[in-house]
């Protein structure tokens, strides 16, 4: 029924454009509104955008692995740049997560943002448009534009509405990520020229670039350039130190968006570009080992660092790095379970860490402090807030029955299939998650209510309940019924892995171009092996650690 309704309004034809351009239109509305009403305009507008995006759940064809709802308009013809959008199983939930978290974050900022609300809310909408663009662009140039575009509003959100050290944090954030993405730009241009030489016409289309045959060495260099850009974004250890600073200084809604979706742009990049474009490099034993080692360090090291943070927000910021470590682990397991698990962690982390930042923001609005030591015994005066926080904390540390478990479990399971030792070490993260989270929960919400200021803390308001209720419901719903999500992602995940496997050193040496005409292109250096022999002496397999017989 819903499907036919969506069909009758031609939903799939315009929805992706609407999700990008409506927030931009909303910017105008917000700027046009009064300072006092700007927040309401922004919220209701983003809520409408979110409701529109809900149709994707039904309109998306779960049996299709490739891009859906595609549309293509030439933009800069001389460069072969096009304004082309589309989503597949990997981007579907990222888009929905973006529209959802945007409206939640805007609603959560009502009491927090006191100065220049119009400017703030228009930047939030711009950010939403940019992130949706990142997740739905099928032109690499367009992707890069959106990728960089998100930097700008976030820079201002931190730099203008942030805390005391906001300038330092904003510049650190900007320089770190801009540095990373510059390398990616070089990589993109290299791909572009390579494609132009081979195909004879300029193109930035993702589908075309996929067809560009690359030698193993080229793949490794390009992989490195792209991986660096995305690793800063994720962030992967040791590129993570911008994140705690940015989070601590960012206003609540900034932190929510940062944690919920901006970090996901990094792991999304892994899945969208690193694996499909550079499959040989992505399964190169050294590369895989490096990524897994960094993932495992991220999981354990940041968990330990998180545990000793005196600032609750910084603690949660560090836990983000640990969670994203599970995503990287799942991705570079190069198994169906690993990728699926990584994607679920991305969704789950978006929900639970977003909720944690909202809750910490609510506490901050009440007490004007984030220091754990300033709290204590809050559960007695704010039972609703405490319940929501405890549930969210449990989802964050992956308690079964919540979304966090499904993701971490599958990511670890997937990693165990191909890399037992890494998976077992990463499993220890389960212990250290409890080690960082529970003491914080105890010191803030339990123990004696011994500080007079804390006695006056109000419980959740109606607006805050409206914010938290859907987040809590999603954590539990995904925890018990992730299958509808998993089935929608599965075909795309399989396609990515098949592409990686097909490029295995023993695979083909020429690649078929699928632009409709089925042209077989012999690579310029057709004689060159796809991978340098010396780069490939040990197979990516350590599966024989424990033998059965």
């Amino acid at each position, binding site marked *: 029924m819903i499907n036919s309704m969506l069909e009758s309004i031609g939903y799939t034809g315009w929805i992706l454009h609407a999700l990008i351009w409506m927030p931009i239109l909303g910017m105008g509305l917000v700027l046009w509104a009064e300072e006092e009403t700007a927040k309401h305009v922004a919220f209701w507008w983003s809520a409408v955008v979110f409701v529109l995006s809900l149709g994707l759940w039904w309109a998306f064809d779960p049996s299709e692995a490739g891009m859906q709802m595609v549309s293509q308009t030439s933009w800069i013809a001389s460069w072969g*740049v096009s304004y082309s959008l589309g989503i597949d199983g990997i981007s579907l939930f990222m888009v929905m997560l973006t529209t959802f978290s945007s409206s939640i974050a805007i609603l959560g900022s009502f009491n927090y943002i006191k100065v220049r609300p119009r400017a703030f809310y228009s930047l939030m909408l711009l950010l939403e448009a940019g992130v949706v663009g990142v997740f739905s662009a099928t032109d690499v140039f367009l992707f890069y534009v959106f990728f960089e575009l998100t930097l700008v509003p976030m820079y201002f959100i931190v730099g203008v509405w942030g805390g005391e050290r906001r300038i330092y944090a904003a510049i650190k954030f900007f320089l770190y990520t801009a540095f990373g993405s510059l390398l990616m730009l070089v990589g993109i241009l290299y791909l572009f020229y390579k494609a132009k030489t081979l195909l004879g016409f300029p193109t930035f289309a993702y589908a075309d670039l996929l067809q560009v045959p690359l030698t193993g060495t080229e793949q490794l260099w390009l992989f490195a350039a792209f991986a660096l850009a995305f690793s800063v974004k994720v962030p992967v250890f040791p590129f993570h130190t911008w994140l705690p600073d940015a989070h601590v200084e960012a206003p609540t809604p900034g932190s929510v968006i940062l944690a919920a979706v901006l970090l996901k742009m990094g792991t999304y990049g892994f899945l969208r570009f690193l694996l499909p474009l550079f499959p040989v490099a992505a399964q190169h034993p050294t590369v895989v080992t490096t990524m897994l080692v960094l993932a495992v360090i991220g999981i354990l090291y940041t968990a330990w660092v998180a545990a000793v943070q005196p600032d609750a927000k910084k603690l949660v910021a560090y836990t983000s790095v640990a969670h994203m470590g599970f995503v990287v682990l799942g991705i570079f397991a190069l198994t*169906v379970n690993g990728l699926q698990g990584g994607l679920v962690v991305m969704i789950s982390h978006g929900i639970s860490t977003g909720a944690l930042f909202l809750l910490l923001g609510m506490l901050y609005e009440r007490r004007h402090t984030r220091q754990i030591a300033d709290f204590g015994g809050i559960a007695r005066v704010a039972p609703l807030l405490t319940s929501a926080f405890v549930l969210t904390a449990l989802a964050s540390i992956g308690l079964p029955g919540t979304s966090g478990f499904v993701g971490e479990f599958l990511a670890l399971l997937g990693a165990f299939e191909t890399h037992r030792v890494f998976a077992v070490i990463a499993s220890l993260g389960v212990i250290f998650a409890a080690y960082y989270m*529970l003491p914080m929960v*105890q010191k803030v919400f339990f123990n004696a*209510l011994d500080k007079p200021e804390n006695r006056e803390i109000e419980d959740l308001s109606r607006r805050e309940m409206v914010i938290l209720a859907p987040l809590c419901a999603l954590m539990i719903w995904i925890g018990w019924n992730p299958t509808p999500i998993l089935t929608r992602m599965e075909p795309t995940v399989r396609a990515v892995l098949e592409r990686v496997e097909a490029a295995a050193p023993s695979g083909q040496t020429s690649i078929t171009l699928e632009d409709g005409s089925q042209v077989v292109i012999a690579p310029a250096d057709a004689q060159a092996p796809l991978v340098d022999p010396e780069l490939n002496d040990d197979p990516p397999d350590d599966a024989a650690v424990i033998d059965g017989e």
Partner: protein
Amino acid sequence: MHASLAAVLVQGGQATAEAAGHFEPFYPGLIILLPLIGFLLNGVLALRHGVASATAVRGGGELDLDTGGRPATHTLPSLIGPGVMLLAFLLTVVNFTRMLGAHIEEPVVISYWTWMATGTFTVDAAIQLDQLSMIMMMVVTGVGFLIHVFSVGYMKADSGYPRYFAYLNLFVFFMLTLVMGSSYALMFVGWEGVGLCSYLLIGFWFSDKEKADAGKKAFIVNRIGDVGFLVAMFLLYVTFGTVDFVAVFHDAETLAYGGSLVTAIALFFFLGAAGKSAQIPLYVWLPDAMAGPTPVSALIHAATMVTAGVNLVARSSVLFALAPVAGATVAGVGVLTALFAATIALKQNDIKKVLAYSTVSQLGYMFVGVGVGAYSAGVFHLMTHAFFKALLFLGAGAVIHSMHEAYHSTHSHEDAQDMRNMGGLKAHMPITWVTMWIATFAIAGIWPFAGFFSKDEIIWQTAAFGGATHAPYPMLYTVYWVIALAAAMLTAFYMTRMMVMTFHGTNRTGEEESKHLHEAPVVMWAPLAVLATLSVVGGWINVPESIRESFLGLGPLTSEWLHHWLEPITAQATHIQAANLGELSHSAPVGGGEFMWALISTVLAIAVVATTFRMVGQKEIVPAAQDVELTGFAKVLYNKWYVDEFYDRVIVEPILRTSRFFWKVIDAGIIDGVVNGVGWTARGVGFVISMFQTGSVNTYAFILTVGVLVILGVSIF
């Protein structure tokens, strides 16, 4: 999912037809669902109540509940909490009786919806009804119901009353998930879920830092074990492609006997079991868990949750039977824990601490049972222990309740749990006194109480296993057997000491206070009476042939029912064991048959009880406030062998120190040092950057606009 939830309620899900045999399950999904409904209802009440008392706290006061009678906010939870448990228990009884008449060989699996399906890994939200899950369900809902009823009296005056019942119901929901789930993955849901409830209930009085600490410790230590459980599941998945019980056990026999894979799987599972069931080296959380309300200690930390590890090993009997090294490890850890915890119990003065270490010790016995392949004996002791240890804890609860009110009346701050402040309580609380003695006889292994039969069976099986034709390490099992016998004597000693210090001799509570000592109300003593009955007759359902023929067997009153009942579960393991070990021994390492050693052990136990009774009875015991500090070995035992201190020094503190090192030196020092260095260099070199950093939003907005225009401009050409 909605359709399947409806299916739970209307049709009871869809049973696999071919496996069902004659057994028609009767709304089994409701058994799990009822406590969940109870949790949701009580949860709403708890939140409403919490909001009300929060308003009072903000007003500078407390919500006044001391109105004499039962506060109005307590009525609904009192009905819902025990009510859903009674219904769940009755449903379990119906299913149990149906299964009794059906003689099914295969488990009945009822699937409700697909929980996770990634494409290569699938696990259903499904329950499995078989002989083992049925026994566990009977214990969980039956004993659980009694403890819910007891709680109505015990928690009467507590301001967190609705929250208490919400947590307790949630616990039962997860515990039933643990025992009824049809796969390791679902068992793990229950496994961590009960850990969560344990955490919440240990820290129930969260304003007290010590209690909140204890809850946190329980959770973290349990998670160490949980990693083992996870890794074992991963190994199962890569080996069999599934973690469903039926499929795994079906394929398990393809694994090589004694192979490293099956040994690894079994040992990782046992790591999980050691966490949840408080075995060496992960037992340290359980004694601290006594910080929770006493009925919680009875339900979670004695009767049900802590036995989950035993249930896990019994459930995985095939895997453990294939891994003799794992079996020897399980039995070895079990017997060491039994002895070690018993020695600590000798010197404790807190009545709940004695019972806590006693629980650790008895869990050790259960692991000895399942470790030597006597799976039904392990489950048997799990069941009888649920009866008598729940009774002991509830009895202790009644005592503490009475002591607390006595001290409350004079506003004294003496310790209501310290046995040195008790003495002579039998005059004030006769029912509690009698029922607790029954439980003491049961745990001490005195004929014909329940514990005699179950503990004796385990000790005997240890000897029989060690003397088997091809036993892997016969000497080792002889050592196990001797330790198990010795620990049994220690049990008789510390339990009698506890009873004498609590109930006999002269009262040490205080003159004024002792006037307020009283017997528990009927809502509390009635569950004691039921459990006391079960602590006697509960052992009669599994009396082996050789004993039943003698005068120890009580004639027609007893049977070997449980052993036969569990045969469909254990048959595969028994078969593997018989094929590889040969025949079990019929005599102990030093000679003598099962009957003789049963007789010897019960005579010894009686002797220890009698001697201890005289010894402790004649000793002068002074109230806690006047007592002197212990010295020498007694002090070491009193301080629990300083294991907590050892762990703090060797594990906890180094981790904290390393964490600070990582943060201060590596993160803030090295990495940020490099980053800031690069940043400053860039700033110094490129004046362009400083031009951009005007700090003015307008400038940035201008640059942004120009950038966009440039791109748009290019697009025109």
